[in-house]
């Protein structure tokens, strides 16, 4: 047999060739980059992290001013991206599930409305929707002095949305502790309920007890603590509002755009997931005498979720990645701040690698969480 006709030899040669090609390409890029950077007098490396950033950031979860370092500015960006992605993902899932269920409704106008919503939203670029919402919030809404006041304490103006905030009181801290305590209690109650059912066949209503404790324990603490309830209402002072919580128009239009856009995709996923469960499954469960909520939670949902979760994961990741469109409407997310830093320092390679690294870790974290959830939800087959 000739050398060339041996499959093993050919495999090695193919792989060697592709390795050489990739390495040659890398070397070519590397040498060019080095030459170009030397010509432009740009030093590589992350030394610029400690230099003063010198630009303001309009909103931030941590203390920041223009005297701080680039590293801190980038941290602000990461936190802002996380803020909009986490809130956005939660809202998008809720809205998406709701619309997906409406799409399957037996009520004809409701189903058509949901269908029209899905078709319209899915066929228009997200960027255009963001521009539209941003224009709505900054151009169409009146100025601060003529701010719309739909509810007491809520103001809508071209500076964003003003909401009343709760005055902090130590009692709230204990209420939060009690919620965490109840969740732990609920976990043990569930284990106890399973044990009781395994041993005696009797059902212990652990969900009911947990919900009751969850409702009444914080309420009790609140009552005992003297019912603190003081709102900090936004007030018009001069040219702007003071007090309360303000949500910037950038954040709210980005959030609105991302949530509406992603929810249309999630709705389609939910619809196909529910439709993938055969009608016989529901009928069989009913024939066994299960109550309707048990039919849903024990039979329909576990099967539908198996179909829903993998594409849902990629939609959640899409929302996180799409939040980078913030740069178009000047919301200071990570890509926006990295871009500003890039323009100021010229450290393109470091910053783009950083963007890739940050988004990859977001993707990995989301995937890990969703894989864990998927494993919990997946049917255990024989």
């Amino acid at each position, binding site marked *: 047999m000739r050398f060339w006709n041996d499959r093993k030899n050919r*495999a090695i040669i*193919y*792989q060697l060739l*592709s*390795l050489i090609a*990739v390495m040659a390409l890398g070397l070519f*890029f590397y040498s*060019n*980059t080095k*030459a*170009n*950077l030397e*010509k432009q007098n740009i030093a590589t490396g992350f030394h610029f992290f400690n230099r003063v950033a010198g630009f303001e950031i309009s909103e931030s979860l941590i203390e920041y001013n223009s005297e701080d370092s680039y590293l801190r500015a980038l941290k602000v960006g990461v936190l802002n991206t996380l803020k909009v992605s986490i809130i956005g993902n939660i809202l998008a899932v809720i809205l998406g599930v709701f619309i997906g269920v409406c799409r399957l409704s*037996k*009520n*004809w*106008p*409701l189903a058509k*409305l949901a269908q029209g919503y899905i078709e*319209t939203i*899915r*066929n*228009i*670029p*997200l*960027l*255009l929707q963001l*521009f*539209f919402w941003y*224009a*709505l919030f900054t*151009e*169409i809404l009146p100025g601060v002095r003529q701010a719309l006041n739909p509810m007491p304490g809520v103001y809508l103006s071209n500076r964003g949305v003003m909401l009343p905030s709760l005055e902090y009181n130590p009692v709230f801290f204990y209420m939060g502790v009690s919620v965490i305590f109840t969740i732990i209690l609920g976990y043990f109650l569930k284990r106890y309920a399973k044990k009781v059912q395994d041993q005696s066949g009797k059902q212990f209503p652990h969900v009911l007890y947990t919900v009751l404790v969850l409702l009444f324990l914080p309420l009790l603490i609140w009552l005992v603590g003297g019912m603190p309830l003081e709102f900090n209402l936004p007030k018009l002072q001069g040219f702007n509002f003071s007090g309360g919580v303000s949500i910037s128009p950038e954040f709210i239009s980005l959030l609105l755009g991302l949530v509406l856009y992603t929810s249309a995709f999630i709705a389609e996923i939910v619809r196909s997931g529910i439709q993938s469960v055969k009608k016989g499954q529901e009928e069989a469960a009913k024939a066994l005498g299960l109550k309707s909520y048990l039919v849903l939670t024990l039979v329909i949902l576990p099967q539908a979720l198996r179909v829903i979760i993998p594409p849902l994961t990629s939609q959640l990741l899409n929302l996180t*990645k*799409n939040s*980078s*469109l913030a*740069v*178009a409407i000047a919301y200071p997310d990570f*890509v926006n701040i990295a*871009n500003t830093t*890039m323009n100021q320092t010229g450290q*393109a*390679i470091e910053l*783009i690698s950083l*963007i*890739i690294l940050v*988004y*990859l870790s977001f*993707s*990995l974290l989301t995937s890990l969480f969703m894989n864990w959830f998927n494993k919990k939800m997946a049917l255990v087959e024989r």
Partner: protein
Amino acid sequence: MKAKIRWAKDNLFKGYFNSALSIFLITFFAWAFYNFFNWLVIDSVLLGDADACRQASGACLAFIVDKTRFIFFGFYPETEIWRPIIAIFIFFIITFYSRLKSRWNRRLLYNWMYCGLVIWLLMRGGYFGLVKVETHNWGGLPLTLMLAVVGMIFSYPIGIFLALGRQSKLPLIKYLCVAYIELIRGVPLISMLFMSSVMMPLFLPEGYSPDKLMRAQVAIIMFISAYMAEVVRGGLQAIPRGQYEAADAMGLTYWQKMRLVILPQALKIVIPPTVNTAIGMFKDTSLVIIIALFDLMYTTKASMQDSNWLGFSVEAYLFVALIYFVFCNMISRMGRLFEKEFR
């Protein structure tokens, strides 16, 4: 008639809650439609200037009429506007002609190449007495279409190769492909576009870097290829093992097996997700506005900043949304047609 009443009973008025909901929604539809119709048709200003628009309570269609040429063609010289129009027509005709599977042969491929060449020459000019128009003057719809169509034409085969590579038995090739696909899918398109505009000139020898439009096109191709690869992989995994084994048993080589047995079946299965990816890409071309290329979105934004016509952004956004909607719909219709053709 009886059937209609029965339908209404089942779908609109089943129970008190359903009836109330139906009546509420239908009233809402009617109200919304009435207001929108008034705004768009009855109270709108079709001819006139910005002042006439500001006095009217309806839509300012005059703004759209005035800016249509700019939104569609950007900074392309006004006297040469017939060139992109003809180019778009050529593109539509060849696309429409290729809709039937029976016409897919080698000759059609050559025809596509000729058309591409003609469109390029027509748009670029510089020959046959045509004025030369540099790519940085291209804009609007031709640019958006070009980014999307060229992106699709290149990323489809690249995606197929990447998917094959990912399934390969050669470990090195497999991991190279996996690394590429996962890396690209993990980052947003914007970072790829920034990379194309900032990093790519650094990667290439000085003076050899292509213009910004070309670089953005490369970034889009690189980005979509990774998504295309995942779509194709879904198809490859859906083919039963027996097909692979039968092809091996016939003594086909790897490439024969893929070309004659596996890919024709796999690509057929994945037509719907392929169409979705194509629609996604068409929408994603709008992101090139961020690196300041004059696509449809940019020309729309730019016409809103005309100081004569300030304050009509809603009209402009709705207009461009309609354009995107129509094109996305056309792509999904074409997808359904292909599905029927290949069944």
